[in-house]
């Protein structure tokens, strides 16, 4: 075989007993999975817990993966849903997210090396993103930030594609309104 093995080949190798295959598969995708978990949950600590929990679930259920979707979609679905479950199980989850972001430290750490103006705008945007209702936040993160198509997100979340689109549209409008308010307040 030439070149790197595909995701499907790595998963198959894992199921056949290759001790390194699953780790290699995760290493390949951990950056994007981390970004989704981090943005959904709004802080590094919860994102780490969700990522670990989700990937352990994936490991334990690997044998039941039937190949109906791409391996990467399967991994993303598990991590996204684990993050969503985590937020729902936190009694004061929404408030915690807002509080965590209030000082901007987590967001600022996520955007190193940018010009000051861009950093401020992005911090503002990330804060506004985390204040969206959970369903809109997840849809906007997956479609607008991560670049999935609405159809792919529909499959990940097991909801109709139109619902994904409407959640994105509502989320964008809220973000636009929020950014306009911020801009207005800063210009006063």
């Amino acid at each position, binding site marked *: 075989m030439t070149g790197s093995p595909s995701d499907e080949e790595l998963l198959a190798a894992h199921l056949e007993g290759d001790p390194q295959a699953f780790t290699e598969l995760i290493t390949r995708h951990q950056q994007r999975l981390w970004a989704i978990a981090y943005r959904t949950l709004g802080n590094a600590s919860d994102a780490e817990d969700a990522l670990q929990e989700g990937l352990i679930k994936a*490991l334990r259920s690997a044998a039941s993966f039937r190949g109906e979707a791409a391996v990467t979609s399967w991994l993303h679905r598990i991590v996204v849903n684990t993050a969503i479950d985590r937020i729902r199980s936190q009694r004061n989850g929404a408030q915690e997210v807002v509080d965590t972001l209030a000082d901007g430290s987590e967001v600022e750490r996520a955007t190193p090396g940018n010009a000051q103006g861009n950093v401020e705008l992005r911090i503002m*945007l990330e804060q506004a993103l985390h204040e969206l209702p959970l369903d809109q936040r997840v849809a906007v993160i997956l479609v607008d930030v991560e670049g999935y198509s609405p159809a792919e997100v529909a499959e990940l979340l097991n909801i109709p594609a139109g619902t994904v*689109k*409407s959640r994105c549209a509502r989320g964008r409008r809220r973000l*636009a309104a929020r950014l306009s308010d911020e801009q207005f307040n800063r210009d006063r």
Partner: protein
Amino acid sequence: MPDPGDHLAGADDAESMQVRQLLRSLPPPQIPTDVADRLYRRLQVELLPRQRVARARVLATAAAVLLLLAAATVASGYRGSKSMVRAEADPAPVASGFSYSADTIAILVPQLLAEIDSIPLADLWQREGTFTHSSAGVDSCMTGIGTKSEAQPVIDLANYDDNPAAILVIPDQATNGEVSQVYVVGLKCSYDDPELKAFVPDVPTALAVGFPE
């Protein structure tokens, strides 16, 4: 059937389009190195027992026979002993009072095993509400951390990094207990949430355990 959200599909105004562009330009948060390290180690812990099974498939059968022989010898020669190969159904954790940390655990575990017969069993009140309350709880925890050893672990209800924790010392069957796998877990360890705090592989324990010749 029309999708109820479709009417909003083309509803983006100029501001929303601008938001989309901004969102697309957000740089991805980089996974911190320490987070990636912990994730890697956690996956290794989960994978380790499977690796050992794969690597030592031939040795496993022989080791299991040796462990059974050792257990029988211990049961007859060391009645009441808290040796690692005891076969009681009750988990019977001990409470050493040790304060473990990442720096001391590899030293304290052999000491724990060497002094096991003089270390008191944990009181019922100490076990109440923990996974050590029943053998089913211990089994659930061991499955949760990804191991399902034939031998019962030695469990020490102690402190790790100044917090209450359980230290599970599991003899490595493939080496007939010459080394042990040591897991540090929270007191509510279970299959669903093993609360794994630390994992120390291959701690030399043969001399400390004193397996019967």
